C-alpha cells in the first residue's frame, strides 16, 4: 500500500456555513497502479489531490480531519520541512494549465535542474545532463535547445511534456495528475496521455488521474473512484465500473455522455437538476434530489460506502437492487 487516505475532510470558509469541498473521503492507492478520480466541477476531486499534497490555500481552506498515510507516514502531521522533501521527490503533481504552473521568467532548463539540484543534490553539470535525458524521455525534439527556452516559446502540449519531465525528475512513487490534458487539443491529448501512461508503467510510478472525462479513465485507469459533492460514491475496477455501475450517479453519468461509437440520434438521458451547493448539502444522501430511485430512506439517512462485489463499493442504499430499479425507472412506484 503506497497511499492511504482516511476520512479526509477539507472545508472552505464561506459567507455562512463552511463549504465542505471534501467530506470524509477514504481510498487506497497501491504501488504502480493508475487510479482515476472522476467527478464534475465541485465534486472535490481536485481539492482531494491538493489536500494530499498539503497545498490547499489556507485561509480560506483548511484540512479539518482525517489521515493521509504515504508509506506509513501521516502527511497531515508532517512538518513543513518534511513536506518540502516529499513534494516533488516522493509525490509529484501536474496541473491542468501548465502555463500557470511553470515560471514564465525562468528557462525550462533552470526549472528542471532546480528540482534535480535541490532534491538530489546534483552538480550543475550533472543536473543539465539529466534534464536533457528527461526531455528525451518525454519525447521532445532538440532537448539541448529546449533547455534555454522559456515556457512561452512552447505549445500547450510541449509545456505539459515539460511538466511531466519535471514530475519524473526525482523518480517519484506517486504522480498526481489534475486534469492534465483537459486544455489540450484532441490529437495532442492522445500523444501526451500515451506518453504519460507508457513512462509511468516503465518506472512503476503510481498515478492518480483526476479528470471529468470518462473516456480518458476508461483507457488509462486500473481502478476508478467516482466523486460527488465531496464524497467518493463508488469505487471499482475500471471495466467493472463501466459494465456494472452500482451507484445511480455513475449510471447517470454513463447514460448522459454522448459517445462517438454508439448509435447516433440516441436521445441522451441527462441527470436532472444540477450539483448541490456544498455549503447547504441536502439531507441524507447528497444525490437524492437528482436521483430517480430515491426513497424516504435516502432523504433521511446518509449511506456509507458498502461492498457490493469484489473490490467494488457503492454508497447507495439501493445499490443491490439497482438492476431492478433500472428496469422500472421512470415508473411512479419506483420513485416513491
Amino acid at each position: 500500500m503506497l497511499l492511504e487516505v482516511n476520512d479526509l475532510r477539507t472545508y472552505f470558509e464561506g459567507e455562512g456555513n463552511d463549504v465542505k469541498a471534501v467530506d470524509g473521503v477514504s481510498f487506497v492507492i497501491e504501488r504502480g497502479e493508475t487510479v482515476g478520480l472522476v467527478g464534475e466541477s465541485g465534486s472535490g476531486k481536485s481539492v482531494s489531490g491538493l489536500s494530499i499534497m498539503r497545498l490547499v490555500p489556507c485561509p480560506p481552506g483548511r484540512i479539518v480531519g482525517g489521515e493521509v498515510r504515504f508509506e506509513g507516514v501521516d502527511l497531515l502531521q508532517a512538518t513543513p520541512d518534511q513536506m518540502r522533501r516529499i513534494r516533488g521527490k516522493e509525490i509529484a503533481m501536474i496541473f491542468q494549465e501548465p502555463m500557470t504552473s511553470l515560471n514564465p521568467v525562468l528557462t525550462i532548463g533552470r526549472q528542471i535542474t532546480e528540482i534535480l539540484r535541490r532534491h538530489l543534490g546534483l552538480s550543475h553539470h550533472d543536473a543539465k545532463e539529466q534534464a536533457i535525458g528527461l526531455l528525451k524521455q518525454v519525447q521532445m525534439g532538440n532537448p539541448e535547445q529546449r533547455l534555454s527556452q522559456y515556457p512561452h516559446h512552447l505549445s500547450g502540449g510541449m509545456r505539459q511534456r515539460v511538466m511531466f519531465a519535471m514530475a519524473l525528475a526525482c523518480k517519484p512513487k506517486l504522480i498526481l495528475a489534475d486534469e492534465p490534458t483537459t486544455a489540450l487539443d484532441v490529437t495532442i491529448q492522445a500523444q501526451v496521455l500515451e506518453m504519460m501512461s507508457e513512462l509511468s508503467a516503465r518506472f512503476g510510478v503510481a498515478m492518480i488521474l483526476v479528470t471529468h472525462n470518462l473516456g480518458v479513465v476508461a483507457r488509462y485507469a486500473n481502478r476508478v473512484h467516482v466523486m460527488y459533492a465531496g464524497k467518493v460514491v463508488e469505487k471499482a475496477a475500471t471495466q467493472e465500473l463501466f459494465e456494472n455501475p452500482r451507484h445511480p450517479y455513475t449510471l447517470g453519468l454513463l447514460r448522459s455522455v454522448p459517445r462517438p461509437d454508439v448509435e447516433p440520434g440516441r436521445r441522451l438521458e441527462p441527470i436532472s437538476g444540477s450539483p448541490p451547493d456544498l455549503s447547504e448539502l441536502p439531507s441524507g444522501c447528497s444525490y437524492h434530489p437528482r436521483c430517480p430511485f430515491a426513497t424516504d430512506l435516502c432523504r433521511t439517512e446518509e449511506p456509507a460506502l458498502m461492498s457490493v462485489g469484489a473490490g467494488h463499493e457503492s454508497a447507495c442504499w439501493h445499490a443491490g437492487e439497482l438492476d431492478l430499479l433500472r428496469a422500472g425507472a421512470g415508473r411512479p412506484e419506483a420513485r416513491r
Partner: protein
Amino acid sequence: MTAGRPAPQADREATGRLREKAVGDPLVDVSGLKMYFPLPSGKLFQKGGTLRAVDDVSFQIGRGETFGLVGESGSGKSTIGLCLLGLYQPTGGRVLLDGHDVSKARGKALQRIRKGIQVIFQDPFSSLDPRMTVEQSLAEPLVIHRLSDRRGRSAEVQKLLATVGLTARMAWRYPHELSGGQRQRVAIARALAIKPAMVVCDEPVSALDVSVQAQVLNLFEDLQQEFGLTYLFIAHDLSVVRHIADRVGIMYLGHMVEAADRDETFDHPLHPYTQALLSAAPIPDPVKELQRHRIILSGEIPSPSDKPAGCVFHQRCPLAIDACKAAMPELREVRPRHWVACIRAGESVPARPLVP
C-alpha cells in the same frame, strides 16, 4: 434516428460540387470563403505577414439542418462562424444567408440579415452582461429589433424562459446567481428571442459539466424540432458532433479537409487527419478502448501564420508522399456525397471504422 429530429430536406440526392450538394434552396451558402488577418512585423512602417485563418472554404447548410464544424485550435472553425454573422469582413469569397450577401451588406440591410441569425458562445458568463438581469438581457434584442412593445415584452420574456426550461422567477436574477447550465439556457433564450432561422453555436456545451451538457444538447434538439432551426454547430468534441449533427465538416489549419453526412464521416473517414482525430477521441468503454486501433499523430499543429507548403497536413500525415508537398489538394467527391481533400484518399487509405 428517432423522432427527435425533423427530416432535414426532401432531396438529399443532389450531386455536383460540394456547395451544390446541400439541396435545392440552402439557407447558408458559403463559397470560396477567405479570411486573412495581417500580422504585425514588429518593425515600424514595415508590413508583416498574413495569417490565413480561413482559406477557400465552401459549404452549404440546408434549412433545418445541423452542420457540425469540427477542428482543433487554429483550424479556423470559429472564424467561419463569425464571418457568417457578419462580424468579420471576409478577405474573399461570399457568404449568402437566405440569398442575401452578408459580406456586402451594410447598415440597415445588415441589421435585417442579422435578424435571421443569432449566436451562442462557449462561455455564457462572458457573453451575458453581469449588470443586467435575465429579463433585461432577454428583452434587449426585442427592443433593438422593435419586435414588441413595452407591455408585450415581459410576457415574451416569460415565454422564452419557459421555452428553455427555466422558471419565471429566473427573470429577476443576475448572471452570477445562476449555474453554468442555467446561464447557457439564458444565452439560448436570448438567441431565440428574435426568432432567427439560423443559430451559430460556437462550442456551446464545452464549458458545461457532463450531466448538464446532456440537458443542453437535448434542449438544442427540442428547439430545432419546435422552431425548425438551422444550426452551425462548432465543436472540438467529436462525440457531441456525432450526436447532434446531420452533416460534418472537418477543418484543419483553415482548410476543410473532409465533408460528408454524419454517419459516413464517422463510419468511413477517408482523410488521414479525420481518421487520426476519430481514433484519438476517447470512448467511455474500457473494453472497446483497449481493442481499438489508435493512430497517434506525431508533431504539433503548425501555427496558422506559418503553414506548411503543399497539403497543410503533410508534415504530420502517416501517409504523406512527395506529391503532397506540391499543392493543397482540392475537395473531391471520393464516395457519393463524401468530399475529401487528400490525394491518397480512397486509394491506398483503408476506410477504417471507428471501432474495429
